């Protein structure tokens, strides 16, 4: 593959071990700017570890991760400001209101007009009515949407979402799918871990499947999407038989 556009993500020989157990093993992956990539795989396949390494939350045991040509380990605040992350947990303080949480993160990310940014993000995620309630009392779905608002406050160029549909009802899930489609612009990179293959082939342009810490499938989704879904399900079945 040729040189990456400005905000591409490049992983070279990335491995991550916890003790003697490898969560990821020699991953090579290039993600171009403007891509919307779904990462799939069975539980424990290494999806979350992969996103953690790209976001800088975890350090690879071996290999390098570069974003915009800069190695993530050496990334300063400027590079981290380009990345928005939604993890398994909400990263929200339960005793603060949604607004206080969002204001805190807006200030931490150096957003110029934090109040305005909070209003815009809350509007986008349909959580305006919950802004002044403590996060502790919010439903799981609303908390997830506030967490998404937190990740989008600073208009990140790289968006990493780890199972963002968790806890959302069907209406909220549809609205999230539509939001992700909107966020998929030529300037951005979107990487989303998913469990639902139907979602992976309907929105993202590319599907990367992990199994036991290795990439076992890397394919565009828009052509022959049913074949992609069938291949994925075959892979899962093969893994279950092992």
């Amino acid at each position, binding site marked *: 593959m040729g040189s990456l556009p400005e905000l591409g993500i490049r992983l070279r020989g990335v491995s991550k071990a916890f003790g003697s157990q490898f969560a990821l093993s020699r991953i090579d992956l290039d993600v171009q700017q403007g891509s919307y990539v779904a990462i799939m795989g069975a539980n424990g396949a290494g999806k979350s570890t992969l996103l*953690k390494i790209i*976001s*800088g*939350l*975890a*350090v690879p045991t071996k290999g390098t991760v570069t974003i915009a040509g800069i190695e993530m380990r050496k990334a*300063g*605040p*400027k590079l*981290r*400001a380009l*990345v928005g*992350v939604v*993890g*398994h*947990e*909400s*990263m*929200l*303080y*339960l*005793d*603060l209101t949604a607004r*206080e949480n969002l204001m*805190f*993160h807006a*200030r*931490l*990310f*150096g957003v110029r007009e934090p109040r305005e940014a909070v209003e815009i993000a809350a509007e986008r995620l349909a959580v305006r009515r919950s802004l002044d309630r403590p*996060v502790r009392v919010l439903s799981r779905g609303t908390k997830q949407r506030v967490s998404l608002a*937190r990740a989008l406050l600073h208009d990140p160029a790289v968006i990493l979402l780890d199972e963002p549909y968790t806890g959302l009802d069907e209406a909220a899930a549809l609205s999230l799918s539509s939001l992700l489609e909107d966020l998929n612009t030529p300037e951005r990179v979107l990487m989303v871990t998913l469990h639902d293959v139907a979602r992976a082939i309907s929105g993202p342009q590319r599907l990367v499947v992990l199994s036991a810490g290795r990439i076992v499938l890397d394919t565009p989704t828009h052509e022959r999407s049913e074949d992609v879904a069938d291949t994925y399900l075959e892979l899962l079945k093969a893994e279950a038989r092992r």
Partner: protein
Amino acid sequence: MTWMTPAATIAAKDLRLEIKTRDVVASVGLFVLLVVVTASFAFPTTGDGREGVAAGVLWMAFLFAALLGMGRSMALEKEEGCLEGLIVSPAPREAIFLGKLFANLGFTFVVELLILPVFVVLLGLQVGTMALLVLATLLGTLGLATVGTLFSAMAVNTRGREAILPLLVMPVSVPVMIAAVKSTEAAFAGDWTSSTVSWLLLMVGYDALFLLVALATFPHLMEE
């Protein structure tokens, strides 16, 4: 300064959380008050050397306050993965440490400010040199808070972190505790001598050393 803005943002967030929950000041303050009241019955409040006993009891209470407060403060960051939220932010890791340190210092000072007058009254003490007492409290608390904030970040990912934090902090804080007790004893006795200056200088050196060590090591503690 690029560290100060995010550090102040983090400290302000901790303050806001504390105002809402009163977790640290109320529970820790009450605990330390009980320690002080019990000590006032257990130790002699008259006779020679009572300033030394009083200073020792006072700093034991301050140490407990600092340990409990800092453990709680870092544990809050683990709830809902909030610490990860700080790590993925553009805030330098050193600023995260300073933010937590400022907040811990603030909470500990508030508890100390509430406890100190009660302690002086209960033990029938007179403060001979108020400036020395204030200086000893500031320097001693800075040392305890620096070490405590660093080790609470280390202990937060371990099982039984409440037990591990004192095990880590207490041995390392011996020099600053001795210096703080000696300086506080001199403040109660109104006896500012050259050895008091040495104890104060020891605290300055301890604080500076551990602040540098903490700033150098904290970023590595944040890596998985």
